[in-house]
């Protein structure tokens, strides 16, 4: 199935998780009266990661991109060096995996999906066909995410404290 069921349910789950995490984080924050730019950026970065991680959690393990995203986020949060190879190596041996990626890279020289592989999480290891499918799903979820974030911001800005 190519279309995610971006019904209200998904939005709910997404929003629930994200809002929850965000609120709890914000309540535990130190008072941000005189934060440096760096701190502000760091907090914004945390929020962004929270958004992506809750999106990935909403989608679950059903999609390749969500799995890849989860691994990537874990690395980003923990600041550990991470390699996708380790995650994918459950299914294939490492050598086969690298060969697979090389095959995809070579095949795609003229077709222009290289950039797409870079954008979609986990795109380097997928064959072009499933890449398209994952892209479609990823796109829909991304749209949902942006929409929800926008509405949250609208709500938050409508109630200044």
């Amino acid at each position, binding site marked *: 199935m*190519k279309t995610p069921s971006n019904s209200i349910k998904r939005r709910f789950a997404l929003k629930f998780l994200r809002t929850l995490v965000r609120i709890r984080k914000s309540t535990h924050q130190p008072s941000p009266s005189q934060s440096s730019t760096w701190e502000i950026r760091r907090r914004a970065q945390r929020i962004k990661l929270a958004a992506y991680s809750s999106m990935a959690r909403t989608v*679950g393990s059903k999609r390749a991109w969500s799995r890849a995203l989860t691994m990537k986020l874990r690395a980003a949060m923990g600041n550990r060096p991470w390699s996708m190879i380790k995650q994918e190596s459950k299914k294939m041996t490492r050598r086969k995996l690298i060969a697979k990626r090389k095959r995809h890279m070579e095949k795609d020289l003229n077709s222009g999906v290289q950039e797409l592989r870079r954008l979609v999480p986990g795109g380097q290891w997928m064959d072009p066909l499933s890449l398209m499918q994952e892209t479609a799903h990823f796109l829909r979820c991304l749209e949902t995410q942006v929409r929800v974030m926008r509405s949250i911001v609208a709500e938050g800005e409508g109630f200044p404290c």
Partner: protein
Amino acid sequence: MDHPLINESSFSTDNPSAYSLAEIWPFSGEPGNAGLGIRVGHLGRFVETHVSMEESTVTVTDQSGARKRKEGSSEMVSTSSADNLNSSKGKRAKIVGSKDEDGAPKGEDESSSAPENKTTESLKGSEPSKQDYIHVRVRRGQATDNHSLAERARREKISERMKFLQDLVPSCNKVIGKAIVLDEIINYIQSLQRQVEFMSMKLEAVNSTTNLNPSVEAFSSKDVGATPFDASRMLFVPQAAGEYIQCSHPEWLHM
């Protein structure tokens, strides 16, 4: 598709409706089909529909499909079929036309028509495979054409998914062409990611200056459809798989 497209079973008597070429080659019944190429196209369509569904009923060839094939292939195919018609029966590649031109093959001719249809396939399979049909599934050809078959199927799938993506992205509705669509999709994804970044900065500002909690219910009711949600439940039961969690008053009002 590892079996030959047309094997004996496809022309067995189990499927009487499948191969009555008279139905499928109405020499005078089809609108807008006058040339020889069309007939051959029909045959190809027959074969392809028969093969693509595993059943026996090939009742109506897609007239639209046939017409599309006509646009693309009539020139190329008609020549080959003309050759078919004129040559003798003994050769492999030239049999079908003559036989078919005589009229509908009768029941007793089925077995003999089977190899002939095969040959037509092979001949036609080679010609159209050089052209690029966008919307017609052309699965003609024999086992020797396995590669082109697989290639064609693969390309078809990719283009189908590309079309789906095109519908998804609002900005590439009008353009045609794989490269442009891909570029647009990439741009769109990048813009969405940038928006996420922007929103996260805004939210950070919002979170640090606003007490969001009183508005949570209003927000949820607006976005969700009049159902407030329960934060503590969510915390302990983080079910991401789309469960419609019924809620009570949010519990995190502990500012």
